């Protein structure tokens, strides 16, 4: 098999605050092949965005620290790169779409110029005319008339702004696109438009994608692989078929599914997960999920569960000891 495009190995990230150290990521490992889409799912505080920022090396300086691990992109460890080298990689090879289209654009710059900015920095050998032509092309590609490039962000609706952000992210045809909740701020009909467009562009430009979301519906329809995160760990990882159709699941994944009011189900009561996400400053010992887990045993409170692998499907839970194999 070919080498994966992106491979994260045992990544540990901490945030240092005045009060205590926040354990944001506690040894996560993931890999993403060329052309694939990997979905990162989990609730607020699970470490999804921290994972994305670590790959981009955009963690807040001084506060965020990568304690351990490797992030291999095309076989090279991004954590060994200098800031100058990283600048060449950002946008060029890896680019990112942020959650909130309202705040990720510069309000006092014309949208065309914001796309142009990426080209000017990374494609200095292109002539001005060529750059402008590329800007027009990018706008048309995301479904915005090129004539609107001289307008400012406030003249666009939320869905249109997110299209502009996507145009900027894809202007340099990156190999990896990180999309952090790209459609959370949008209405469903607009979300459908944007997702459709992203998947079309992904095929056209042969880009791999890391899609961060909390919407399992979006994941099931767009991702090839899924990683379920909880309290800075990947608790379940596998192909979409394993996660959505497989029989074995981590209790947290089951809880997530039980929480969803499904359109085609008629259950009167939802079965939510009890309790709350643990405080990342004081994570529980043993399995991080044990205080909320309906199947918790004495062992779960003490021992960190080992990884159980079944083909590509990985579950991190003591329960699997007797069941898998």
């Amino acid at each position: 098999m070919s080498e994966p495009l992106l491979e994260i190995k045992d990544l540990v990230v901490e945030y240092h605050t005045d009060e205590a150290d926040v354990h944001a990521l506690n040894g996560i490992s993931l890999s993403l092949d060329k052309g694939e889409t990997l979905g990162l799912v989990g609730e607020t505080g699970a470490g999804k965005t921290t994972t994305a920022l670590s790959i981009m090396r955009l963690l807040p300086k001084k506060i965020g620290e990568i304690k351990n691990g490797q992030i291999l992109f095309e076989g090279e460890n991004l954590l060994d790169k200098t800031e100058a080298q990283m600048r060449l990689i950002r946008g060029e090879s890896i680019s990112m779409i942020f959650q909130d289209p309202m705040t990720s654009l510069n309000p006092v710059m014309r949208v065309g110029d914001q796309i142009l900015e990426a080209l000017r920095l990374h494609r200095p050998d292109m002539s001005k005319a060529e750059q402008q032509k590329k800007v027009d092309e990018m706008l048309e590609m995301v479904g915005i008339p090129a004539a609107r490039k001289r307008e400012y962000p406030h003249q666009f609706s939320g869905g249109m702004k997110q299209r502009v952000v996507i145009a900027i992210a894809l202007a340099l045809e990156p190999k990896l696109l990180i999309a952090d909740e790209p459609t959370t701020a949008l209405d469903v009909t607009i979300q459908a438009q944007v997702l459709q467009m992203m998947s079309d562009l992904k095929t056209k430009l042969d880009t791999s994608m890391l899609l961060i979301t909390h919407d399992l519906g979006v994941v099931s329809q767009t991702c090839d692989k899924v990683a379920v995160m909880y309290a800075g760990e990947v608790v379940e990882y596998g192909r979409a078929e394993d996660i959505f159709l497989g029989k074995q699941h981590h209790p947290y994944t089951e809880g997530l599914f039980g929480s969803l009011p499904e359109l085609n189900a008629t259950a009167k009561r939802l079965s939510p997960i009890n309790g709350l996400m643990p405080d990342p400053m004081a994570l529980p010992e043993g399995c991080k999920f044990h205080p909320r887990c309906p199947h918790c045993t004495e062992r779960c409170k003490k021992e960190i569960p080992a990884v159980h692998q079944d083909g590509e499907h990985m579950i991190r839970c003591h329960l699997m000891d007797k069941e898998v194999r």
Partner: protein
Amino acid sequence: MATPMLEIKHLKKYFSTPAGQLHAVDDVSLTIEAGQTLGVVGESGCGKSTLGRTVLRLLEPTSGEVLYNGTDITKFNRKQMVAARQELQMIFQDPYASLNPRLSVAEIIAEPLIVNKKYKNKKEMYERVGQLMETVGLAPRLMNSYPHELDGGRRQRIGVARALATDPRFIVCDEPVSALDVSIQAQILNLLMDLQDQQGLSYMFITHDLSVVKHISSHIAVMYLGRCVEYAETEELFAHPMHPYTQALLAAIPVIDITRRGKKWETLQGEVTSPINPAPGCRFAPRCKYACEGCHAGNMELLQISAGHWVACPYAR
């Protein structure tokens, strides 16, 4: 037939803007029976929050009536309205912005009790606050905490307890779970449904999330640009969506179904047109794939297609 608990008749709310009249809610008529939940769905800007606020007169309606047990509350004077609000309450969308950061949990929940002079002495009042906190599943030790110390789910429980303080009969829930994570969202939805079973409350549940609305509502009204375009019982609406907009809305929801992966989404083209001085005719016509000449003229009235199923589209079949 008995008078419905709440009847909204031809309710309109226009806002004046420099560009013209913004038709936020335009001639909406709906009814809610006691013990039922009416779900109001639509995308941002369709006027669903304005509708909820206008019904409680947090915004003054431009015209129209809101009948509560047969009396028109839009005609109430200030004093009558204060009394009526004890029975008509609201839960707000943002559990971060809707709680006064400088009041403790107990003070927030006690405020409606103080305003309405419900209790003789402090002791009695705090007993009631304790009861309310227990009802919504907040630990009594949190009484003296401040909102910033609590997470979104707990804050929303405070909002629910505050709404319940005056023993309301009807609560407008304006996107009460959209700011919460799914597992917490499920906890709050279960709480709201339990309260309805125990106390026979009626809800007007405003949301953009169709799967939530399906779960909690008995009836659903779909809104588009200030208009109610479809109204039916929940089962009926999901089984036979008639209005092209409802159909598009249902098709756009990403359901968990990996067999749809890689297939084309049926997407609605274009975006919502401006609600300022809207053109006559069907407001959805510019995005509608079935639109024809007739759609751009005349007003689209809600028509009864089958028993209890109303659609504002003459071509719906």
